[in-house]
């Protein structure tokens, strides 16, 4: 019997297992399907990680490396090359591994840390032929940075999220010609610093309010057609540009990977596509927790680590004290806010403060974030800049929650 089984050995799983160990759990197992720990960080060889958590700028493999060494220095058990097939409500974990074969393990608590995966061409339904040469940006990143293959020589990138921007620079440095980065929204989904360092440094044009409307080619991509879109994101006829290229990279969003979660009948929040969680990252089934990108897609791994450390601590507390009861507040997203994590808060569970992560649904300047309950204003925070691509965080002092009844709501008011 394990105290804790962590599903996934990426940044979330590593931090969660570490925190649980530090809080006294001694029978802890991490199950990872890849051949090594570290998850997606292993292929994110660029820098910019760790400014919050380690107070220095690290690359992805370095950031992962630090957590891996910390976990390796504990007695946390690790099973690599092992895929979890099923998680049950009574905390059985069924898995199949290269060395261990099929196993069923019983745990007192489970932490879900499966991360997310990329949306593909199928998810956005781009018309045209179906040649080779269409990759998700993350798949291309793995080929280039780990396997040593360059997926193409003349490249168009659809989507200006951070992975797309990073890959524009990466493909250029490796000798490919990146012809354009195309973004359907009127603003980039990536960080400004990436637009400067990855596109402007290499004179790669960014086409905002444009999208790919056709892929052409027999065996391999030969051309892509890019059109301008109107404010409802519909392509405008007559605005077509044709790019001669052999590769299209897609950076069109990430989806939390929650098959195991759904299979166990755990409640999913349609806003995040992740499990609904309480203030301690516990899901709708007591004793099961979730953290990292499986919960909601983060921009910064530092936030993943912070959230996962809390999940690990909460799992340790569950093993000691059992179910956490108490009065529940529902957190709602009001105008301007697209989701919140946590979605529910148990008043008794809040020690001093309660952190809430959320995203806004449009770019705002000089705004106020309002926390209300019914007609009562509970707290107010000022922000000079808000964007959907940048996750926001507020820390609500626990005493203020006493003013709330039934639910609280987060909204944005632009000055």
């Amino acid at each position, binding site marked *: 019997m394990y105290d804790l089984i962590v599903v996934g050995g990426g940044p979330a799983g590593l931090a969660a297992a570490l925190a649980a160990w530090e809080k006294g759990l001694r029978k802890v197992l991490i199950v990872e399907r890849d051949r*090594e720990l570290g998850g997606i960080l292993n292929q994110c*060889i660029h820098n910019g990680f760790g400014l919050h958590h380690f107070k220095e700028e690290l690359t992805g493999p370095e950031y992962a*490396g630090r957590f891996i060494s910390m976990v390796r220095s504990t007695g946390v058990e690790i099973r690599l090359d092992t895929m979890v097939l099923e998680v049950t409500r009574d905390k059985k974990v069924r898995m199949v591994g290269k060395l261990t074969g099929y196993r069923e393990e019983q745990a007192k608590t489970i932490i879900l840390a499966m991360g997310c995966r990329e949306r593909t061409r199928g998810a956005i339904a781009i018309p045209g032929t179906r040649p080779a040469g269409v990759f998700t940006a993350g798949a291309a990143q793995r080929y280039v940075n780990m*396997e040593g293959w360059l997926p193409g020589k003349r490249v168009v990138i659809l989507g200006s999220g951070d992975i797309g921007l990073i890959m524009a620079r990466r493909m250029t440095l490796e000798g490919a010609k990146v012809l354009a980065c195309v973004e359907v929204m009127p603003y980039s989904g990536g960080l*400004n610093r990436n637009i400067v360092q990855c596109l402007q440094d290499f004179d790669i044009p960014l086409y905002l309010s444009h999208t790919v409307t056709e892929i052409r080619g027999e065996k391999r991509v030969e051309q892509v057609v890019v059109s301008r879109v109107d404010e409802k994101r519909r392509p405008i006829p007559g605005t077509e540009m044709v790019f001669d290229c052999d590769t299209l990279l897609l950076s069109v969003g990430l989806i939390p990977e929650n098959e195991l979660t759904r299979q166990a009948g755990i409640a999913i929040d349609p806003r995040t596509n992740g499990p609904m969680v309480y203030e301690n990252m516990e899901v709708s089934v007591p004793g099961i927790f979730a953290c990292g990108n499986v919960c909601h897609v983060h921009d910064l791994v530092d936030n993943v680590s912070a959230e996962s450390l809390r999940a690990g601590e909460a799992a340790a507390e569950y093993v000691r004290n059992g179910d956490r009861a108490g009065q529940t507040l529902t957190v709602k997203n009001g105008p301007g806010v697209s989701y919140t994590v946590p979605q529910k808060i148990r008043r008794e569970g809040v020690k001093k403060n309660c952190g809430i992560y959320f995203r806004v649904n449009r770019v705002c300047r000089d705004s106020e974030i309002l926390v209300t309950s019914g007609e009562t204003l509970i707290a107010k925070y000022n922000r000079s*800049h808000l964007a959907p691509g940048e996750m926001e965080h507020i820390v609500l002092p626990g005493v203020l929650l006493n003013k709330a009844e039934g639910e609280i709501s987060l909204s944005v008011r632009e000055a």
Partner: protein
Amino acid sequence: MKELICIVCPNGCHLRVDEEKDYLVTGNACPRGAEYGKTELQNPVRVITSTVRCRGGAYPRCPVKTNRPVPKGKIWSVMEAMEQVSLSAPVKIGDVVIENICGTGADLVATRNMEKEN
């Protein structure tokens, strides 16, 4: 007068830098923006991250970085220099791959552990 977006923090201030007034920066919300504006126009620098060939490990490429920012103009010579080297596993994080790469004063260092595979 040059306009640029500050990359120091997510605010993304729109800076205006006056080359004729000793690189006077306006539009910045904080002192770090002023410093960024000055260096970015006089001597822009970047940390370069890439991979080099590696034999005997789990993967054929080992990630590397310059351990301090190097002049932007040196990016392509640094990339060229990386092509010329090959590592052999085992490699440890921080191992120096090329000292003082291209005379920049920065060392190229490995950014992951690559154990020897049998």
